[in-house]
Structure formats: C-alpha cells, structure tokens
C-alpha cells in the first residue's frame, strides 16, 4: 500500500517516468502459454511479505485451500487445492505468477482457485470490492517470491 505513494514521490522528484518501476494494470497482464514473464509490480517481490499474504484471511488466504509444511505452526490447512510443498520445483516464477494472477488462464475456467489480480470475476461483486483485485501488484510479486522459496517436499 505504501509503495505506490513512494513511486509517486520519486516521479515528482525525478520528473521523468524513464527507469521507474511501473505497475501493469490487471487487464494489461500478458499471458504466454500459462506463464506471465514480466513482474506485474515492475519490481521484485519480498518473500517474507508473501508468506504473510499466504496466511492472511483478508489477503491471499491461500492456506484456506492449500496445505503448506512451511507453515506447520499455523492451524487449519485446507485441501481444496494441492499442497504447495515443493511447488518451486514444479513451476518457474513466470508460471507461478500466471497461477496467482488468474488461475483460470492456467487450469481452465472450471477451477475454483480465485484470480488474485484480475477483474474477470463473478457477478454481483459487493460494492466495496467492485473494480478491485484481491491482491495488489506488489502482493502478487511477494507471494510469487515466497512460492519460489518452497523447494523441499
């Protein structure tokens, strides 16, 4: 949440967009065969932040559906989706980014995994979530960076 403001200030100071990390809007994210190559935030993610996003019920709430041995101290791991243990060995960063941004583009329209950085969502979205993505671009990159740390089974 703070980062866009920081970027804004930097813009004013430098007076130029060149060289600034630029976010990609949800509708402009480009998918290439189940992969999203460019970071959506324009910068690298922070795995420690991503770990928090994974657990937080108001953010990713990924643990609701995915068991994760790295978080064995947390109670209640769901099993709606596969366990994410060792997920870094199964997918590269671009593939993980595609899954988090919009899992429907990877697993097909029937998947129950929500799209965390897309506006292509269900009907009747509640007023306070309208036009908003579940995660911010920075949070997406944080989660992707965190998933890349899940190497062991």
């Amino acid at each position, binding site marked *: 949440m703070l980062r866009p403001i920081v970027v804004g200030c930097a813009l004013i100071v430098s007076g130029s967009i060149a060289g600034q990390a630029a976010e990609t809007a949800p509708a402009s994210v480009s998918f290439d*065969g189940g992969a999203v190559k460019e970071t959506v935030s324009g910068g690298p993610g922070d795995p420690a932040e991503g770990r928090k996003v994974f657990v937080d019920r108001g953010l990713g709430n990924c643990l609701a559906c995915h068991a994760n041995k790295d978080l064995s101290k947390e109670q*209640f791991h769901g099993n709606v989706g*596969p366990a994410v243990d060792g997920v870094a060995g199964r997918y590269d960063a671009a593939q993980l980014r595609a899954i988090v941004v919009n899992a429907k583009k990877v697993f097909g329209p029937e998947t129950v995994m*929500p799209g965390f950085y897309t506006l292509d969502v269900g009907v009747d979205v509640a007023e306070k979530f309208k036009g908003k993505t579940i995660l911010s671009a920075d949070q997406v990159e944080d989660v992707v960076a965190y998933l890349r740390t899940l190497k062991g089974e």
Partner: protein
Amino acid sequence: MRKTAIALLGALSLSPFALATAASADPVDEELVIDGQKMITEAPAPKVPPGHPFDEVLSGWLFREADTRAMEVDSFENPGMLNVERGEEIWNTVEGAAGKSCATCHGDVAESMKDVGAHYPKWNAKAGKPFNLELQINQCRTEQMKAEPYKFDAQDQKDLTAYIKHQSLGIPVKIDLSAGQMMDWWKKGHDRYYLRTGQLNLSCASCHEKNADHYIRADHLSQGQTNGFPTYRLKQGNLVSLHNRFRGCIRDTRAEQPKAFSDELMALEVYTAWRGEGLSVETPAVRQ
C-alpha cells in the same frame, strides 16, 4: 470423491503442468439416532428430474466434529430444543385483531403438522410462487390472525419455524415439483446454484459439489443440504435460518447478498430441497 478426480483430470488436459491430487476427508460412517429414532443421513439421490450430481445424498451431520454430532443425538443436549419449546408457546399464543393463535385453527401440532415441514417449499397458487414455511406462517398471520407478518429472522419466526419443522423429525424430505410452475423455479434455482458470484468467483457447486468432503481452512465442506434448518449454530448461540445461511455463503464469495425470500433465494431453496430429497428432517440440527 469421484467428482473431484474428474475435475482434476479436466484441469490436467487443459494445463501444461502436472497436478497433485488433493487429499480428502471422508464424512463419518455412523448412524444418527435421535431419542431412539433412526435418521436417514444417507439416501440415493433423487432421479427425477434427471441430472443430480451425486449418487448418494449425505446429511451435513456426517461432516461435523464428534462433539457437535453428539449434541444432536440427545434432545436434552441439543440447545436448539429450547427454541423449539419456545415455538410451542408461540403456537398457542393469541395474537392479532382476529383473536386467534396457530392452535385455534390447527389444533394439536403433532397431528396437524406431522409431516408438513418435510414437504416445503410448496407451490402457492394464490401468490403464484413457491412458499417456504416462513412465508406460509406470515400469510397465516396476516390473513387469518390479522397480525403483523414477522420481519426476516425475528426470533419468533425462527423458533416457530423450528417447532413446526421439528414435527417432521425423521421424515424424508420430498417436495412436489409437479405443482404449478415449480419446475420453472427448480430450473432457476439450478442456474443460480452454478452461477459464479463475487470477487472470489465461486458458485455453490464450487464448494458443495466439487469440494464436498474437503476442508476449506477449518471448515469441513458438506453437500450443503437443507434438511436440518433452522439449525442451531454454536458460534452464534442461536438458531440460524436457511436464508441467513444462503446469504452468508454468498457474502463469503464477496458478492452482494440477495434479500431473504427474494425470488433468487426462493428458487435456490426449491432447488436445494430437491438436492437433499430422501434425507430425514433433522430440525433443529446442531452446527459449529
């Protein structure tokens, strides 16, 4: 189980990646006997109209933790029975300008309401739509008793509904889809059941069909059957009505909630009642 396997296989053919199958948590294999009376908690799915997604329908009781299950077995342990007792008082209380109570017209509840609750929602020709028990009660209040209709989820509405439903304890749910335009409502409810809503983009089927018997965080997902409503929820310490539950599930997809007794939720009630046909009425079922 089988459904999930199919869903995962379907995803495999679309996906260039390998997928691990999710582990499941099976419902318990136990009998539910309430005060010596055996409940039907597993039944063959209804065949008419065709298209039921399961071979077998399962009561939500089978998916609950042991201590929650135990509370439903014994009427003295079931906190919802206090609401049922309160419902009996309401049944016998005169209200409204006509000076009548429910008992004035219907007499002995055990006789007149013996299996009534098991067959709702029901076509109401005059209203031109299906009525659930709550709407029927309100119609009796306004037309027969000349009393105010209950507001949605008024405590008296929940208690009286539970009292009437409880008279059908053990009787299998069966609704009449041949009456009036019930099939149109069934169809509308079917479409609504598979409609993906909200920012999380989930339908009822995402949780209660594809993932029945899986855990979503701490919650063991059931088939979302309606045979125990109003249910007693330990978390709320009160009865919870069916439309309250529907609204909660829809809110959890981060969608706007339809109004209680709206056409959308009435259609959903018709359709979900059919999905659970053959299961005993368990009102007031106990839930965590």
